[in-house]
């Protein structure tokens, strides 16, 4: 049985897990590196941001400082003071002199002078919009600076006082410097980290912003650092290359792992599975070799093992076929045995469910086979069976199978057939049996075959299970005297009534065996001669079924055909034990009990007889062995009979003179009494040579010590003859019919004290 490992994982899964883990680790490391790179980049960006902020602040401060310096220079310039005092040529000074002198070194710079009252000395040109007066609140003695958005241009104004003297005692007026803030700020070439294009000032049109509040309103971006970008690019490419390299290595490793380990192991696993399921590689030595030496060794070992297994498997298959065949073949006849019959019949019934068809069941039974066996011996009996089997096989259709299901009983079932075809087959069987060479075996009696046929049409397959039973009934019908020995179940009314009887007897028998009390013993007196007084009684079995008695000639064939001798004898012994225990028989009345030859060799029967022997003290017991021709284990039977004799049983051989009781058994078995068959007794009544032979034989047996009993004495003449021959006992309708125990007990009661048996 294949062991299940629900939690087991494959080596491929392990490889995938390893590769996945490696890739995950690489991804993790890559992610960490990217995180670190981003952190460094962020730090550098922050540094750049700080640097940009610092340099921008420095640039702003520098611009303001330079503007302040410029204002100081301008305030201290003689010509500035001159203009505030004598402003007649102010415009010349403002527009030319300031620039020619170098006081204002850029055209972006503008300057204007204001009177102490804050009013502009002279209006500025239209393109240079200097305020007409200084903003309110401008401190008169201090510098002030502010920014204002003028039509999209941010202007920086720097106002400063101009004094007449160095001691700053006489205020002459104010100077105002205007410059375009952004160009001036960005012209300083001091911005290395700041993206100059991004620098802007968030200022609403017309809004005045003090320079002290300037920096928070500045907007700027950092200039991309080429080194940083190069660093990031190199690092990113390196990480990508590393990741791709590791991924490629992982993939290659997986492929190599797959090729070197997983596939070979998978192949080995498949080999092992195939071996487990009996599928062998046609030529394992040609299989692809493995690159891993250990696996190659395992492969070679497995292949060697597989070769050995193949040989073993082949041998076992051969043996199995042999066993299978033997298990389903009858060794004597070569046809299929009962086991094969049961399997094939079951399979055939299953097939009928999917393929309805007409089915015929044929049951064959050899007539008088027992007689043949007893007369000519078992060897010839076996030979007869073989010839019958061969003939039947020849008579059957090519695909039909013949089964030996009992001693001389054969069966077959015909598929896709009709009753007429089945009858034809049966007739062909009988023809071939009749033509068989039994005479070559020295058998002069005709060997016949009774055939029972049961048929089930395709539309009545629900009754197919009844076919064996119906064929059995038909066969017993065929055995009826005067029949053609081929009977089809249910073909006519006569056959139907027989069927009813046969069915009733069979049911009665099985019910009687299952229910104690249904077997009823009748007792027939055996008279001692020549006084003709009752010596003992022979117990004869009857079956009471639905208030009616069924006689032995009706149920004994069923017992025989069903091989129920032992069970039936045990039931009889139980009933006899019950009758004896009822004390209805007077003490001293002996009792004779019939047993079949098969039962006497059964331990349970012997055990029951030993139990019954306790009655021997009050009722001497005798065992009548019938059908002794069926005794095959002579030694065991003799041993049992010797044992029974030690507990005071007497042994009688029944039906002597018929084929059932050969003379030979008189020598081998411990027989005390010999009961002459009715046919021999009737010979005594004839005054001819046969009567003389029987009379002489009886006299001779009496002389050697056998006690003789004449059965079936029905006439006075026969009784007289029996008496004249010195036969000790006689039995028959002339002397008394079998009667039930109650009736016998009643007769004893009626006779009173005189009612007794001879001791």
């Amino acid at each position: 049985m294949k062991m299940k490992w629900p939690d087991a994982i494959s080596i491929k899964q392990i490889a995938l897990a390893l590769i996945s883990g490696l890739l995950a680790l690489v991804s993790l490391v890559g992610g960490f590196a990217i995180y670190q790179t981003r952190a460094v980049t962020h730090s550098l960006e922050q540094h750049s941001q700080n640097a940009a902020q610092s340099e921008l602040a420095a640039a702003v401060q520098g611009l303001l400082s330079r503007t302040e310096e410029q204002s100081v220079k301008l305030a201290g310039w003689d010509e500035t003071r001159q203009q505030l005092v004598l402003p007649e040529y102010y415009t010349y000074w403002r527009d030319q002199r300031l620039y020619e002198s170098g006081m204002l070194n850029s055209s972006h710079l503008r300057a204007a002078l204001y009177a102490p009252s804050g009013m502009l000395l002279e209006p500025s040109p239209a393109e240079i919009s200097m305020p007409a007066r200084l903003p309110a609140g401008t401190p008169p003695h201090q510098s002030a600076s502010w920014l204002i958005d003028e039509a999209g241009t941010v202007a920086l104004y720097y106002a400063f006082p101009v004094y007449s003297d160095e001691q700053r005692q006489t205020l002459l007026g104010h100077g105002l410097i205007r410059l375009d803030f952004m160009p001036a700020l960005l012209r300083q070439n001091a911005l290395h980290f700041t993206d100059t294009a991004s620098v802007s000032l968030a200022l609403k049109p017309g809004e005045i912003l003090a320079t002290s509040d300037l920096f928070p309103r500045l907007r700027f971006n950092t200039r991309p650092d080429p080194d940083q970008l190069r660093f990031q690019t190199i690092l990113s490419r390196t990480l990508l290359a590393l990741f791709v390299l590791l991924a490629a290595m992982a993939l290659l490793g997986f492929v190599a792992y797959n090729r070197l380990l997983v596939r070979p192991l998978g192949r080995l696993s498949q080999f092992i599975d195939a071996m487990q399921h009996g599928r062998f590689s046609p030529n394992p030595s040609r299989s692809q070799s493995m690159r891993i030496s250990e696996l190659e060794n395992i492969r070679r070992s497995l292949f060697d093992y597989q070769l050995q297994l193949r040989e073993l498997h082949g041998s076992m298959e051969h043996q199995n076929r042999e066993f299978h065949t033997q298990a389903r073949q009858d060794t004597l006849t070569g046809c299929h045995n009962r086991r094969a019959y049961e399997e094939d019949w079951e399979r055939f019934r299953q097939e009928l469910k999917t393929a309805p068809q007409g089915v015929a069941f044929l049951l064959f039974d050899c007539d008088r086979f027992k007689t043949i066996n007893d007369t000519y011996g078992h060897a010839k009996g076996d030979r007869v069976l073989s010839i019958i089997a061969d003939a039947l096989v020849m008579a059957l259709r090519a695909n039909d199978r013949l089964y030996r299901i009992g001693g001389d009983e054969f069966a077959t079932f015909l598929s896709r057939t009709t009753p007429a075809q089945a009858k034809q087959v049966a007739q062909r069987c009988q023809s071939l049996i009749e033509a068989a060479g039994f005479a070559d075996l020295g058998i002069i009696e005709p060997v016949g075959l009774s055939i029972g046929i049961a048929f089930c049409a395709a539309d009545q397959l629900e009754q197919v299970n009844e076919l064996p039973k119906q064929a059995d009934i038909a066969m017993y019908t065929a055995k009826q005297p005067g029949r053609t020995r081929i009977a089809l179940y249910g073909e006519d009314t006569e056959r139907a009534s027989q069927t009813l009887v046969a069915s009733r007897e069979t049911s009665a028998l099985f019910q009687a065996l299952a229910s104690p009390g249904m077997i009823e013993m009748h007792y027939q007196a055996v008279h001692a001669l020549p006084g003709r007084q009752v010596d003992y009684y022979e117990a004869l079995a009857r079956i009471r079924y639905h208030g009616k008695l069924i006689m032995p000639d009706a149920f004994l064939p069923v017992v025989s055909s069903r091989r129920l001798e032992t069970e039936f004898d045990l039931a009889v012994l139980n009933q006899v034990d019950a009758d004896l225990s009822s004390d209805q028989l007077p003490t001293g009345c002996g009792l004779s009990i019939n047993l079949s030859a098969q039962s006497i060799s059964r331990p349970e029967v012997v055990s029951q007889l030993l139990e019954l022997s306790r009655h021997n003290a009050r009722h001497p017991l005798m065992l009548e062995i019938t059908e002794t021709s069926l005794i095959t284990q002579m030694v065991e039977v003799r041993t049992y009979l010797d044992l029974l004799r030690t507990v005071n049983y007497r042994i009688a051989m029944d039906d002597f003179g018929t084929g059932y009781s050969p003379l030979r058994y008189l020598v081998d078995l411990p027989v005390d009494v010999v009961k002459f068959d009715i046919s021999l007794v009737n010979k005594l009544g004839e005054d001819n040579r046969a009567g003389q032979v029987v009379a002489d034989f009886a006299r001779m047996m009496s002389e050697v010590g056998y006690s003789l009993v004449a059965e079936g004495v029905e006439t006075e003449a026969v009784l007289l003859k029996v008496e004249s021959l010195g036969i000790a006992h006689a039995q028959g309708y002339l002397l008394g019919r079998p009667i039930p125990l109650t009736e016998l007990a009643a007769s004893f009661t009626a006779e009173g004290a005189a009612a007794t048996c001879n001791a």
Partner: protein
Amino acid sequence: MRLYLFCLLISVFPAAAHAAVAQQEMRPGISASADYLIGEPGKPAVLLLHSFLQTRDFRTVATLARGLQEAGYTVLAPTLSLNIPNRAQSLACEAVHRHSLDDDVAEIGRWVSWLKSHGHRSIVLVGHSFGSLQLLAYLSLKPDAAVKAYVGASLIEAKIGTAARAALIAQLEDRVVRKQRALVKQTLSFCRKYPSTPEGLLSYVRWDQARLLAALKQSPVSVKLIMGDRDDVIEHGWFKALALVEVPLVIVKGANHFMDGAHEFDLLEHTLQSLVTIQQAPSR
């Protein structure tokens, strides 16, 4: 001699500490200042005037002022306002020139008066270059009686370049008459472009060599000129002209117009000699 002056300069250094800045409002809103270096009592005070558009801090003037003070002379070295309040820087040629020689002369007069108000009854006017011209212009008017002598170093006329002086004067006079106030750009002295009001320019342009010679000739006080023979600023023939009017003239050999370098001491030496001479001469 030079070594002697140097040693004197070192030894009397503490005297330099006796200095003050004098300030006067020359015109409404126009104040001017002067270094007042106090010397020894009894010695004449020197009014030392700088050259054209310069200040008293001009090296030649400043060195000479310290030397004179160190020699015991009180020195008043004003900076002409040139109509600039508290002018402290030399005025560029290209600046708007709102001053005139009359203004300069008036300021000189104010400083002479200032000296007198500070007890100086003997005043010697010492000028350098154009300052010599301005002092001479002062003398040509009615100078204060306290002014005893005049020493002109590197005296130079009001040069006007290549332009015809007479025509220029006529043009300027016409502008003045017409009250045309537009600035006139004219070469004047060392300025190639000298923006000025017509009347201001006219006041300077009139002082050519002839007028200088006349002023020297007609000076009410003793006159002495100190000139460098390497002065390439003065017009060729200026020495010859001066000789014609027999002006006392000391020619310092090797000195240029600015008497700089070692010639600063020559200038001081000759100036001191003049002052000594003036002290010994009877007053006017």
